[in-house]
């Protein structure tokens, strides 16, 4: 069989498509596994697709005082989640066109813009729980920010750039890069950040229905129909994007396509999905073995993430560890 080569732009489009198409699949797989761990039968793995299809067929209801922001917010967030996969190594270990238009901080800004637009859209409704959710989401987002910054500093100190591709390449280069304490600490800190940003257990019960404990979940309470579908799809994509950064930049940057041949790039997709399910299984186990922190104890969780990130920088800066 003759090797078919893809143009870099096509691979870039494939990266975005992978995230868009498979995000609900990964979410469905994780919730299925979670149900199994709790002794329930659980929804089908493909259930999120059915949910999305159902929601897209429904009508959109606007709250009384909601203006255009309410409609634009979810769309803008979805667009943001379409942009971020271009900046990070989803399928390839070499950078693609537009891959350098933003570094890790740039990707963080775009994810922040997405979170902010959802929060503004929720606040626009005047619904008390939606407003509570957006206010909490912004507060805790600001509190986790220092950890993200210090993880970025670690990457910058290790690679002398702050590009996700460079960090992944450095980690792939040798075993001593992986076991050095700075890398381990930064990876662990980023793991806690992902736990927070995907609304997982020590911070939030993502499948709960009790509004008082909600943070991210409460923001979507007032949306309906296609807008709600966009929000749910977007949050699944955000989860998968964060998994990509955790896996392909820090923890396991192996199994990516090294060439532009069609076979290698297509093979990278199932490998990546397998890795995503593995990390999803870790999150599901954490979900089932810990209890949710009280709202005012969440700062302790953030302090732990910050501690790991700052130790990574200190160890690097003072001892080239």
């Amino acid at each position, binding site marked *: 069989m003759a090797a078919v080569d893809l143009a*870099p732009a096509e691979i870039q489009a494939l990266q975005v498509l992978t995230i868009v198409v498979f995000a609900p699949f990964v979410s469905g797989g994780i919730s299925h596994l979670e149900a199994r761990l709790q002794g329930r039968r659980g929804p089908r793995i493909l259930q999120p697709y059915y949910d999305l299809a159902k929601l897209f067929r429904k009508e959109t209801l606007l709250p009384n005082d909601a203006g255009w922001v309410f409609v634009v917010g979810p769309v803008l967030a979805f667009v943001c989640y379409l942009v971020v996969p271009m900046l990070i190594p989803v399928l390839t270990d*070499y*950078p693609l066109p537009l*891959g*350098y238009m933003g570094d890790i901080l740039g990707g963080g800004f775009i994810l922040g813009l997405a979170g902010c637009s959802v929060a503004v859209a929720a606040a626009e409704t005047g619904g008390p729980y939606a407003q509570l959710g957006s206010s909490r989401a912004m507060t805790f987002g600001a509190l986790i920010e220092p950890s993200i910054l210090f993880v970025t500093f670690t990457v910058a*100190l*290790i*690679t*002398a*750039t702050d*590009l996700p*591709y*460079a960090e992944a*390449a*450095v980690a792939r280069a*040798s*075993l*001593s*890069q992986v*076991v*050095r*304490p700075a890398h*381990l*600490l930064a990876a662990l800190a980023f793991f806690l950040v992902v736990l927070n940003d995907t609304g997982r257990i020590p911070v939030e019960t993502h499948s709960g229905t009790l509004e008082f404990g909600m943070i991210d979940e409460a923001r979507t309470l007032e949306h309906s129909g296609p807008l709600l579908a966009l929000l749910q799809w977007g949050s699944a994509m955000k989860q998968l994007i964060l998994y990509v950064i955790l896996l392909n930049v820090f923890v396991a940057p192996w199994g990516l396509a090294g060439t532009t041949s069609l076979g290698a790039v297509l093979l990278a997709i199932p490998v990546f999905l397998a890795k995503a399910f593995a990390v999803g299984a870790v999150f599901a186990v954490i979900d089932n073995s810990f209890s949710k922190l009280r709202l005012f*104890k969440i*700062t*302790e969780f*953030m*302090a*732990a993430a*910050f*501690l*790991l990130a*700052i*130790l990574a920088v*200190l*160890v*690097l800066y*003072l*001892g*080239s*560890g």
Partner: protein
Amino acid sequence: MVPLLAATAPPPVPSSFSGGAEAIAVLVLLSEFAMLRAPLSRSQVRLYAFQSLAVTALAFFVAATQHVPELYALAGFSFLLKVVFVPGIVLRLLKDARVDLVASNRLGVATMVLLAIALSAFAFFVVGRLPVRSHSLPTPALGLAAAVILVAFLLVMLRSDVVSQAVGFFSLENGVSVASLVVAAGLPLIVEVAFLFDLLVAVVVFGVLMRVHHGRTQSLSTDVLDRLKG
């Protein structure tokens, strides 16, 4: 394909061995932080056992790489004493006292952790300035050991219960052990063993303290000691 950008040369990478050793030293510091914030006395003692295990692993590592056979003996002693014996005794005393949770935080957990981060940064910077070059362990481990010692002091100061004070003192000794492994790996065995006996004496003293204190006040909190008796 666009080549990877590189503005300046990245810092040198430690070898796998020294990176691994340093990661263990970081674990010692992290477990000290965990002790600082652990709410249950029992989990503090277990964390101390874990920290001692990491110190033992470091001693074993130095013994294997530097070919210092005495250190194998030291690693064995410290495993028996600090991982098995001391935590066992303290856990047993705790079981007798039947106290699980002592409300002993003088500050909020997040504040304590931030304070401890500042102290460790101070330790890193100060020790980093010292012209010490270790041949047994990576030099940053000395900064980590100093940070462990300072955070142990913080644990003794900020948690007002007897178990925290005891665990803080014991883990202080762990920090000193790591420092001695970095600076003087070939220290005569008799000196090292004398350290361990010091620890043994401390265990007896703290055991008596816990017993007597609990017998008199029915609690492990040291706050009651401030009250005047008339």
